[in-house]
């Protein structure tokens, strides 16, 4: 923590450079370590060339737009449902008891396992993919919201009641801001998992999307493109999480100003 900021950035860039050089050498030398082999792994230089091609291609927009649309829809629904459900579960013991069994049962089921049923349930493949994205984002958001609501200081609730708080004000002005830091954490984690699940869903069905592009590249043996797809997924997930974190900090000024 005492390091100079410029020094820290240098270190980060340096580690990235070392990884790239090691990768380049491994694939150029066709390194074969027995269990893992780099013989079919394209070197970063080829990947960069493929990435440049893809960036110039008109299909880039279609792939990106399809993926972003699905994530926005699935994640958006999950965010609204997760926060709303989390607030009521955190506030009502009755609802918590009522919903606990089905939610605990559904929670550990991974997105991949949902795919066959989603295809059967949703006639439109677009909606089945949105649904998969939704299942991925819902639980982190829901669980963090419930956790946040349960952790609101009971003395704050007691003071609010003593100050004549209405039920609506209790929820919107005490419980919601009290749980907000946990909700933001849930939203950031949920964003990551929803990308994760989207790509899984796109590999099974669809004609556009970054996940589809990655899988298509494999079947067409365009190996550098596989890695372009992977990097794009990583960047999109990282970027959207970072965006949420910035938004969270802006929305929770009392948190940021803590240290004065």
């Amino acid at each position, binding site marked *: 923590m005492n390091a100079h900021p410029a020094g820290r950035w240098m270190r980060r860039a340096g580690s990235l450079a070392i990884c790239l050089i090691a990768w380049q050498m491994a694939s150029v030398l066709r390194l074969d370590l027995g269990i893992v082999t780099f013989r079919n792994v394209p070197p970063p230089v080829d990947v960069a060339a493929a990435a440049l091609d893809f960036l110039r291609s008109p299909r880039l927009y279609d792939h990106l737009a399809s993926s972003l649309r699905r994530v926005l829809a699935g994640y958006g629904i999950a965010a609204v449902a997760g926060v709303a459900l989390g607030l009521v579960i955190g506030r009502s013991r009755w609802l918590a008891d009522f919903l606990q069994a089905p939610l605990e049962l559904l929670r550990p089921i991974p997105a991949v396992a949902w795919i066959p049923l989603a295809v059967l349930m949703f006639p439109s493949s677009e909606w089945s993919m949105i649904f998969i994205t939704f299942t991925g984002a819902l639980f982190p958001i829901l669980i963090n919201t419930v956790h946040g609501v349960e952790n609101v*200081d009971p*003395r704050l609730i007691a003071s609010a009641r*003593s*100050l*004549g*708080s209405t039920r609506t004000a209790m929820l919107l002005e005490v419980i919601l801001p009290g749980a907000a830091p946990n909700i933001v954490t849930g939203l950031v984690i949920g964003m990551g998992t929803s990308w994760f699940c989207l790509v899984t869903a796109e590999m099974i069905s669809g004609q556009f999307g970054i996940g589809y592009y990655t899988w298509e590249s494999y079947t067409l043996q365009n190996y550098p493109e596989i890695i372009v797809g992977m990097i794009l997924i990583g960047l999109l997930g990282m970027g959207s999480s970072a965006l949420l974190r910035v938004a969270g900090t802006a929305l929770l000024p*009392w948190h940021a*100003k803590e240290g004065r």
Partner: protein
Amino acid sequence: MMNSHDPNLHALTGRIKARNVSIRLGHGSSAFEAVSDVSFEVSPGEFVCLLGPSGCGKSTLLGALAGHIAPAAGTLAVDGDVVKGPGPERGIVFQHHTLFPWKSARDNVAFGLKMRGVARGERRREAERILELVGLDGFFDRYPRQLSGGMQQRVEIARVLVNKPRLLLMDEPFGALDALTRLRMQELLLDIWEQFRKTIVFVTHDIDEALLLADRIIVMKAQPGRIHEEIRVPFERPRGTDIMASADFVRLKQHCLHLLHSDRRADTLTRLSPLG
């Protein structure tokens, strides 16, 4: 609103009657009687301190007056109305950390007014007026974490005063402050009380504090919590901290010490309050 400075008008409200109040805390096998068969009265405008060792039920009794805890037996009434739940006419100030961290000092104070449907402009003005009264001119936009402990307690007091309560209930409000800040806050509270003459019930385990502030001290003892003795505090008002060196003060303090020491067993009981 016009009459907020008329002591006579306020002196008519804030009468407390406690009749054979018993309070049980905890559930099932761990339940115990925290307050046992307590009866007392407080006159309108009176400043009463509940003094006692930890575990004597003084905070629990205050929580019941606020309406956060229901008595198992007996009745608690304020101005003839039985206490049924929390409400803005019985404002409570805790030891620390009950300001809304996400609201500025002004919005914390304005919260009660907002709940009553007072328009935004008016509640801002009123909140600022009360904050100035407690000496927080210029700190309206600070979040609680940007304020010192003493300043936070000033906001707490302002937040309760803005509701024009009949009762001010204070649960060791200055217990977490350093000695000098505590003295200053005690003087501020006396000053506010002289102006508004609200009934105040003030919980403390600090004998000096009780003697400096109260008209009357209700000394409690533990296991189960009950009233040990009531002491009238004869010092003239307005009081300053200079009385603490007087012979009468020292004599009363010795008496209180004697009362608290006769209740040594209480030290073994941990502090238990459902509100923390």
